[in-house]
């Protein structure tokens, strides 16, 4: 009886976690947010170019540095933007481990 109750609690918890996982898979940085970030970065680049307009080398170095920093920020956001797609995405490894822990071997999921 206790085992049955605990079992239903565990199944409910698994279904809740699955629902949350599916909901999170819909999250992403929207087009408007990306556009605002890019516009703001372009504005800063223009301001730097204007501030150093009379010194070409200084303008080049300052703009290059800011462009590098901004690109790193965009990369950081872009790489983790959608949690379940891409090289750095969340993988189903913990779930697969449950299956392999039970069967004692790593299952072949690529078929």
């Amino acid at each position, binding site marked *: 009886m206790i*085992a049955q109750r605990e079992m239903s609690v565990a199944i409910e918890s*698994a279904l809740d*976690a699955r629902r949350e996982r599916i909901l999170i898979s819909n999250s992403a940085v929207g087009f408007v947010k990306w556009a605002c970030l890019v516009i703001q*970065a372009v*504005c800063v*680049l223009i301001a730097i170019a204007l501030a150093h*307009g009379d010194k070409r080398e200084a303008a080049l170095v300052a703009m290059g540095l800011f462009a590098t920093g901004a690109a790193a920020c965009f990369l950081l956001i872009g790489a983790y933007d959608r949690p379940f797609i891409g090289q750095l995405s969340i993988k189903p490894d913990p779930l697969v481990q*449950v299956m392999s822990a*039970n069967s004692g071997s790593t299952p072949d999921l690529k078929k």
Partner: protein
Amino acid sequence: MNKVSPRDEDAARNKHLSDWLHNLPVGWLVVVFFGCAYLSAGVIYVVIVEFPTSLWVRARAFSGSMLSPMGTLFALFVVFTAAQVWTDNDQGTAAVDREASALRDVMILATAFPEESRGQLETLVHNHIEEVSTKEWPMMAHR
């Protein structure tokens, strides 16, 4: 007959572009993001520094004082966006871990059941995990 509106076509095109970009390996993401940033900086440099017009020259007077607040605004945008992205990632990872732990609990509790029921439960959990790994995961990636 179903008609596809221009808005739906735009959304589909944006989705394909987003999928393509996010499917790139990190090395190619670096090339795309840094390439676009340097290209933009180069264009702005040529337009403003190499070919200054009277408007740009007059704008130099106040551009220095604008630099600091604009940089702060950009930093705030980046921080809030990055915080949202990382929170989503953490919650996703936590949800997957919780699901795995709960399924492991089911497997352990199944040992308290008769042989036949235990076998059925293990098969059901096995099938669920296989379905999640092979079907749900690609669907979540290309939602």
